[in-house]
């Protein structure tokens, strides 16, 4: 891990905060989904950098190699990416239907139409 220093965590925290800020501050539903994606991606980076080992080879058995990177975080994040894709798809589908039935995807407009939203 020393090859990365703490830079991976700095990037992780920056992306995480940027993503969360986008989710909270933007009023456009599509921008909220983009923010969610940035937020989730920060976690993927964190996991993948956990698995990195200085000088470690790719985790496929080969002759003469003794040090391998940890493949488990990659597997976990593969699953998490699929989950993220599915969430994005559902979110965008909902946005399209909101646009169709309300005529807007701006939270302010929606709130004006119905205060309970």
């Amino acid at each position, binding site marked *: 891990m020393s090859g990365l220093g703490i830079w991976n965590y700095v990037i992780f925290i920056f992306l*995480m905060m940027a993503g969360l800020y986008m989710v909270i501050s933007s009023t456009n539903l599509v921008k909220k989904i983009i923010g*969610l994606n940035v937020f989730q991606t920060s976690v993927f980076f964190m996991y993948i950098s956990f698995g990195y080992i200085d000088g470690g080879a790719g985790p496929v058995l080969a002759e003469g190699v003794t040090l391998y990177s940890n493949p488990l975080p990659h597997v976990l994040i593969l699953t998490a990416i699929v989950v993220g894709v599915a969430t994005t798809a*559902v*979110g965008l589908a*909902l946005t399209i239907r909101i646009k169709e*039935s309300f005529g807007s995807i701006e939270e302010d407009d929606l709130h004006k139409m119905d205060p309970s939203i």
Partner: protein
Amino acid sequence: MLTHLPVLVVLAPLLAAPVAALMRGAFAPWVVATLVSWFSFVCSLLLLAQVSDQGVIVYSMGGWEAPWGIEYRIDFANALLLVLITGLASIVMPYARLSVRHEIGDERSPMFYAAMLLLVLGLCGMTATGDAFNIFVFLEISSLATYTLLAMGKDRRALTSSFSYLVMGTIGGTFYLIGVGFLYVMTGTLNIADLAERLPALSDSATVRTGFAFIVTGICLKLALFPLHLWLPNAYTFAPSAVTALLGATATKVAVYILVRMVFTVFGVEFSFVTIPLSDVLVPLAIVGLLSASSVSIMQPNVKRMLAYSSVAQISYIILGIGMGTAMGLTAALLHVFNHGVMKAALFMALGAVSYRMGGTDLKHMNGLARTMPLTFWAFVIGGLSLIGVPLTVGFVSKWHLILAAMELGWWPVVVVILVGSILAVIYIGRVVEAGFFKEPEDSTRREAPAGLLIPLWILVIANIWLGIDTRLTVDIAEAAAAQLMAGGVVR
């Protein structure tokens, strides 16, 4: 075949969901969904019997022993939750046929039943698995199914409520994922039993503490603890009736179970309540949530929304029990998880029947129901009495244990708060009862709900009374589960 029970509970809905999605019409997918939930229910009951005979059951997926592979580990707490989830699913699915035809239509029915099965799959998987990352995967499966189910509501606000739940739920799930990542980087394992063994040595580590904070916050978003409950009222109000009944009764409860599993098993009582003062966070939030949500629900013009706020209040009771950090408090919390599931499902199903005949669930639709729809209305009244905590109903059993647990600690103000919460429940249920008995029906020609809705509803109402009188089953299991959880670490 009996050795495969832990995986069969989860596998049956997994196999049935794609089959249901490919079918046409409303009848065939309904039959599949109903039969499969009954099958899972039988499996869960057998599992519960096995657990009380043999103790903890361990099932290694793919034959890979833990901690290398994923294991399913069933003790009393899981088994109780599995019985609750699959039991309610097997009552809600028969009920769904008429309700769904009325609210969703035949064309989208196959997708509806497929999503319901995926929801059951996700909830059962979260409960059965003994792997921290696997919990995240099943959490997201159940959440994705929930988002689509919520969006199927007739009201267009169902879409926006589903969207805001999607945003909140994803943040909650990702927080959980971050927390698990922190634990993994410190311990090198994801297996819950293994984590429990390795974490006590690391209790000073800031990473582990941060991980704890992320996990608890993420799960509290999912279980709608005050003040993270804002997604819940709209979501429950605008969802189709059958969905609200199943979700309101099980989804938040499974999140509570995950919290219990994390706090008591993974981190251990010592770490959660001594090293980190979890009580100081959970108990005040629970008290404020209990009082505020109950008060807000008094003012709701829509009865479904009122019950949604009441769900937030009831979750607060459960969190109060967990926050006590004692065996008795945990027993009360687990009891209330089960009992609240049973009563809330009955109440939401009664409301679904009202909406089937009257076309809505506003307070004005409840006028004179005691005359036009007596069976539905009496079911609602009994469910309401249970929610208040009147003796001889399930609600009484769990509130009684909660009060006992508070008295054991000498927390007298908390006892008062619990009683005040019950009085607030009397008021909000009382408004509906008053409308039903004493107001004139707007249209006295309305008839009783059809038998297809009434029979499942009354099965659940009878369960409310039965489990309120014969408390041996639930109390014994909850006590055994609490004892196992308090013993902490690993029960082999």
